[in-house]
């Protein structure tokens, strides 16, 4: 029994440890402690080891690799200082990649949140068949991105696809989604939103169902128009959900790889749908420049961190006012 064991409970009960858990055991004889600690260590060790080895170690290692000139199959990585970062900031394709990532992310986050919220408000009403439609909106979310990508490749096929056929019926010639950069970016954005809309929808719907009914009644009695009701009653109550979604949807849409890899491989011709994530993959595994790939990954991580911090700040300010 280590001598510290008798002082430990006081430290644990101190202010730094956060609120005490409601179901924790009561203070026990000190002989119970060592046994409890070793059980905790035993239960937590496998998960902690996996997270440390496969999440935290590579996170740090990636930063080290970003300062090297490394071919991923070579045994040794040569340090090159900040050369990769200098190259990244100076390269012509960087602006294209950042632009694509920005357009894709802003479009997917904005549109899927707005549509998800709109659908949630509509399908929150008592309508016949709403359960069927709720399931339909959510169903694509459980399908794999790769399968959706394969399927939508044929939906957008320039010669025999569904989109071409539908447009032809109204007398419009479909663009070649695979040869024109802007249309290719539109295509992957559409596909992503189609697949993931169910997520924002379901989260908003759950939040709406947990809202305060008395506020709705008050608004009705005051004769508020639907728009006023939405803006003044619903939106403020949904603020925490909106914040949660803005972070989780942003993180997942910045990271999208499957749909782009399956549909366009970063193309067409050049970098039409090349995003930061796809650039990490291409530089590391196709161009065999893992050092440069690690640099792009580090830059991406820093951007994500910055954006998340800014989002939290905005949320804080919104809550105070």
């Amino acid at each position, binding site marked *: 029994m280590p001598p510290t064991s008798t002082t430990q409970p006081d430290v644990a009960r101190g202010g730094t440890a956060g609120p005490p858990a409601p179901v924790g055991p009561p203070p026990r004889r000190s002989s119970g402690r060592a046994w409890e600690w070793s059980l905790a260590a035993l239960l937590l060790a496998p998960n902690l080891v996996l997270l440390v080895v496969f999440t935290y170690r590579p996170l740090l290692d990636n930063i080290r690799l970003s300062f090297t000139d490394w071919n991923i199959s070579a045994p040794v990585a040569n340090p090159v200082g900040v050369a990769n970062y200098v190259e990244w900031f100076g390269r012509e394709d960087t602006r294209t990649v950042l632009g694509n990532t920005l357009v894709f992310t802003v479009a997917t986050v904005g549109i899927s949140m707005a549509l998800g919220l709109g659908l949630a408000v509509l399908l929150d009403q008592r309508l016949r068949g709403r359960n069927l439609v709720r399931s339909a909106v959510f169903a694509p979310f*459980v399908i794999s991105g790769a399968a959706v990508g394969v399927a939508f490749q044929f939906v957008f096929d320039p010669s025999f696809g569904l989109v071409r056929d539908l447009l032809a019926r109204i007398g419009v010639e479909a663009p070649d989604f695979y040869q024109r950069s802007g249309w290719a970016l539109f295509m992957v954005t559409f596909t992503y939103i189609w697949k993931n809309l169910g997520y924002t929808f379901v989260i908003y719907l759950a939040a709406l169902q947990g809202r305060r009914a008395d506020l709705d009644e008050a608004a009705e009695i005051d004769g508020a*128009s639907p728009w006023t009701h939405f803006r003044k009653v619903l939106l403020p109550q949904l603020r925490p959900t909106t914040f949660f979604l803005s972070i989780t949807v942003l993180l997942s849409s910045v990271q999208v790889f499957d749909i782009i890899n399956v549909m366009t491989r970063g193309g067409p011709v050049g970098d039409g749908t090349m995003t930061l994530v796809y650039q990490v993959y291409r530089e590391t595994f196709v161009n065999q420049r893992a050092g440069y790939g690690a640099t792009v990954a580090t830059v991406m991580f820093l951007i994500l961190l910055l954006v998340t911090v800014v989002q939290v700040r905005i949320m804080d300010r919104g809550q105070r006012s």
Partner: protein
Amino acid sequence: MTARAHGAEAASHRSRGMTVAGYAGMVVVLLVVGVPLFWIVITSLKERGDIYVQPAQWLPDPGTTANYRDVTTRIPFLDYFRNSVIITLVLSASKIVLGVISAYALSLLRFPGRNVVFLVVIAALMVPNQITVISNYALVAQLGWRNTFQGIIIPLAGVAFGTFLMRNQFLSLPGEIIEAARLDGAGPIKLLWRVVLPMSWPTLVAFSLITVVNEWNEYLWPFLMSDDQRTAPLPVGLTLLQNNDGVTNWGPVMAGTVLAMLPVLVLFLVLQRQMIKGLTAGAVKS
């Protein structure tokens, strides 16, 4: 009095407009979601020649199941399917077990540094896969684990979200019941198995479903780790099928896509309530 009557009138007005918008929205949603799915299924049932005609045929004439036969006999589709089942089962089982025991330790056991450990676990949620793949790929390749199941499974087995979810669930259980069980002399294993888990069943089911769906759909890591039919899972296999030759033969590929989508869609339709519960837990309140 008049103000209230006016209000009621406006409210009924409001609900009529909203009802119309609601039904219109429902029709649009069914079309946008349903038509591409219908198109995919229809294509998978068409004879080869009928796929490549303009204007498109909206009903197969005549229908054929040849594409399904082709994709399962001529191509190693069943191998990919089997690999997916193996990877999903093993990975989900490990994640569920690790999530439950980690959450149990973090919520019902007292030990120094508990909050730090919890922070280490949930902070992992913020680390994108794309940052870790380069270094992990090098490590796994060094171990000679490319194109092996352990190479695909072990690096993905750490569980942050599930730990968070189950810990919150365990903390919400009534303390008196747990105390009573302890006073009755239940050891930690008996307490977990007989008291804590039975009371947490709905959350555990939701967590398990979300995990199974996620692992079935996992793409980036298996794509990097595996490029042959002995270990590649379905999402990777599908894209390998597609790139077989220069021109994609869409019939069998669409049949394969339907077969890849079907298991999760059926699972979802049967158990959607639980799945949605797992997804929304922690997202809505506070």
